[in-house]
């Protein structure tokens, strides 16, 4: 059973977002990593890259698929998880912890509030399965 931590916000495209002041951490959900299977590569954005909400900003590649990762909010990439370069399996092992993708300094710190709650996202995933 996939986990849906309630302190996070989510996107329909299966990214999770954790706000910490004006910086948000982004990764992919437990449900998403499970659906993808073994992650073999993550293409991360450049630090300093600017993004708008909805921009294709990263790519996650598993043994069976390659999926785009979308920027959840507008802002500037301030850090990327360099560990994923050599250990992409962290995305499968700890999607909400060591498997995070990148951090964005947000232009509008209230933007996160419009994203899905854990309950809304979980409902969406369950609807997808049925």
């Amino acid at each position, binding site marked *: 059973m996939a986990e849906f931590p309630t302190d996070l916000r989510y996107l329909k495209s299966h990214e999770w977002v954790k706000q910490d002041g004006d910086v948000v951490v982004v990764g992919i959900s437990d449900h998403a990593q499970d659906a993808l299977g073994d992650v*073999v*590569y993550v*293409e991360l954005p*450049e630090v300093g890259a600017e993004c708008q909400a909805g921009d294709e900003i990263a790519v996650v*590649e598993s043994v069976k*698929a*390659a999926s*785009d990762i979308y920027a959840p909010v507008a802002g500037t990439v301030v850090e990327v998880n360099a560990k994923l370069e050599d250990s992409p399996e962290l995305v499968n092992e700890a999607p909400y912890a060591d498997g995070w993708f990148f951090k964005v300094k947000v232009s509008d710190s209230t933007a996160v509030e419009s994203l899905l709650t854990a309950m809304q996202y979980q409902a969406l995933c369950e609807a997808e399965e049925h």
Partner: protein
Amino acid sequence: MPFVPHTPNDERIMLASIGVTSIEALFDEIPQALRSGELKQTPSGISEMELLRTMNERARLDEMHLSFIGAGAYEHHIPSAVWDLVGRGEFMTAYTPYQAEASQGTLQLIYEFQTMMTRLLQMEVANASVYDGATAMAEAILMAIRANKKNKSRRVLVAGDINPAYIEACQVIVRNQGIELKVQGFNEDSGVIGLAAEPGEFAALVVSYPNYFGCLPDVDALTDWCHENGALMVGVVNPTAMALLKPPGEWGKEGADIAVGEGQPLGIPVSSGGPYLGFMCCKQAIVRQMPGRIIGRTSDVDGSDGFALTLQAREQHIRRAKATSNICTNQGLLVTAATIYLSLLGDVGLRSVAIRSHQGLQQLLRNLGSTGKIKTRFTGPCFHEAAIELPIPAKEVLPLMAEQGILGGYDLGLSFRALENCLLVNVTETKTEQDLALYGTALLNALEAKGC
């Protein structure tokens, strides 16, 4: 027998099952302007007997001449074993089989090809090939734009001394993708490009080594300049030349990022322009932006060596519209020929081919220079090909040489107006001293007939 296997009845059934009235209605959404229409210049079919006769007559025309034309395609000796082996049923197939469980032989062969190309070019990774040298260059440009994360520019600086046909093919491929190719002119004395005079934002620089005129640009300086300016370095190289010259992996401080070229000199005959073979190598760091198939070595459940397609998530069958390229095939049969050719020659053999070819050219240039009528057009070093300057336009001389059984070279006036008196001449190991002497005589006769 029709080429399309569906009978009119099959077509009716298929159309009925998807609810479309006719083939025309099926393609209705394709604008008329994009349709090729009737092929008016194409004659209707002829019988096998007529075809064989026509082709035999044309083949006889070829055999009469001693060819000194290079300009991108080079006549090297091909050991008989190459095409004898390529023609075996195990290799000779219309489609390259990739199923690991059924095609270990083919996969291993492509893997060996990739290994040979990386060693020859001193690059980290190679793909299983693309269509030809020109498309390899276009794919390298698209790849460089994707791979250059530091520089978002969609402009690419292209050396003006690259084969004009390659530049044209690249223009066609990139012009509708929001990519601008800026062609940097070459120095009219040296025939090579120097460092770009105007600074600007470029995702990549594309340089040919040797260049179209056989000349050797300063690739070390160009590579360093490129990296200092946040651009990726793309080398378009002649594989035979790599046995003698500095390979792209060793250019400048960091080496070229992508290296491509035409594999035809490696065991593929010069036959009516193709099919040819594009090879493509890059640094490991940007391999995920590489188009085309890549074969990897792995081990099976019993721990034995095995070969399989790898890094497939770059490709169309997984990434669909976002794939690195619409190229999802390779020149399998020609890769087979190139691999066997390189195996038979080895590094020593390939080096002898390169040396013999270049020595032949040097001999020819000395012979021609001693006449006092013919000059080498560009200064500086070259490899197995050079532009020679005549007192009159090359196009007036070539037919007169052909009458004497010599194809004297490529008329550079066709591509560069300022070089209309120049002939691009190539010598390979296939030419003997006697052939070189015949060339000199034929050219002098032609000039004399024109009053020079």
